């Protein structure tokens, strides 16, 4: 009797945990096999916790029919109740996880849409700022030296230009006869040539021996 009392209280539990709606409908249909049993035919992955309660209700009702038939049966009843509880937990957890994942997915979708809209509307953010530029790496005339390298090249160019001017000036003096012939000339120059080509080439070959900034930057071109 003691055992039967326990079983009875379990039955009560199945009855009360079952959704009120299902209970009412069952009562109205006079206990006929009806909607609660349909839960058995549902797709496993579409089961809700209410379906679990329907299943519990049906199993509980069937167990009532065979109650007090022996100790083995009541043992089995406890096990069934336990399995149904596990089932309840699993279905609840599963449905919650699905819900969470759906929310997560919707959030990410919204974020993606927002970023895409921002990108298509705000094209300006892609264009370089006032102190930036886009470099086409396939363009042979692209800028490729640093400002420091440019500074060195310009300084050297200006130095060479100044030296050339000095040389041209001296040549002019030699030609005009201002400088006395006795004094040894700075550089061997053919005074008959109208242009100071020899003079220049002598200077240039001198330059080549130094490791100049220009030489460093452009040496690959001579190969």
């Amino acid at each position: 009797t003691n055992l039967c009392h326990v079983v009875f209280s379990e039955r009560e539990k199945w009855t009360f945990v079952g959704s009120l709606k299902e209970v009412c409908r069952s009562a109205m249909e006079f206990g006929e096999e009806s909607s609660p049993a349909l839960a058995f035919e549902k797709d496993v992955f579409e089961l809700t916790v209410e379906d679990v309660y329907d299943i519990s209700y049906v199993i509980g009702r069937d167990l009532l029919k065979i109650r007090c038939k022996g100790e083995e049966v009541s043992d089995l009843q406890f096990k069934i109740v336990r399995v149904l509880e596990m089932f309840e937990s699993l279905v609840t957890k599963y449905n919650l996880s699905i819900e969470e994942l759906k929310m997560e997915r919707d959030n990410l979708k919204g974020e993606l849409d927002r970023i895409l809209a921002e990108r298509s509307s705000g094209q300006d953010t892609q264009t370089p700022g006032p102190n930036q530029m886009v470099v086409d790496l396939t363009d042979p005339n692209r800028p490729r030296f640093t400002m420091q390298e440019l500074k060195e090249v310009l300084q050297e160019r200006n130095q060479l230009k100044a030296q050339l001017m000095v040389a041209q000036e001296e040549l002019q003096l030699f030609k005009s006869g201002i400088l006395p012939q006795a004094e040894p000339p700075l550089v061997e120059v053919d005074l008959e040539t109208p242009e100071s080509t020899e003079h220049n080439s002598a200077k240039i070959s001198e330059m080549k021996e130094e490791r100049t900034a220009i030489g460093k930057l452009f040496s690959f071109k001579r190969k």
Partner: protein
Amino acid sequence: MAKKTYDLLFKLLLIGDSGVGKTCVLFRFSDDAFNTTFISTIGIDFKIKTVELQGKKIKLQIWDTAGQERFHTITTSYYRGAMGIMLVYDITNAKSFENISKWLRNIDEHANEDVERMLLGNKCDMEDKRVVPKAKGEQIAREHGIRFFETSAKANINIEKAFLTLAEDILRKTPVKEPNSENVDISSGSGVTGWKSKCCS
């Protein structure tokens, strides 16, 4: 050993916005020529012109700077050695006139304190496109206590006058010394040293 070809060396500097005609002003003065094609100056360049003032041969080494902002670091390193600076704007370009104060600030920051300054309003041959009245140029020059000329490199107006006046102003405050005094050797990695070592033995 070689007889020196000048008595004094003055180092001048041209600054101002890109496209106002600094290179053309210089080209007119040094070569008496004018070219309409616009080739932006890369960084810094120079030309030489020897003039005679008060019986002295004065060699002018005139540095021509790029007006573009991206060359700023290169061009400002040349301010220090300049004895005279010409600030050029374009009378047909209001922006180049508005930027005068910016260029004057650059001078204050980077040039010697006693540098001789001059303001030039270039392209004065283009009267139909003028947007900066001559009076405005004169006013800002007066406010800063500097000389002012309207010039045209194309029509050769006031170019030589501007350079000679600037050179005279520098000459006036140059102490009477031998030409190899240290205020001549002002090159900071520039090409001036070549002449000095050879011409003053």
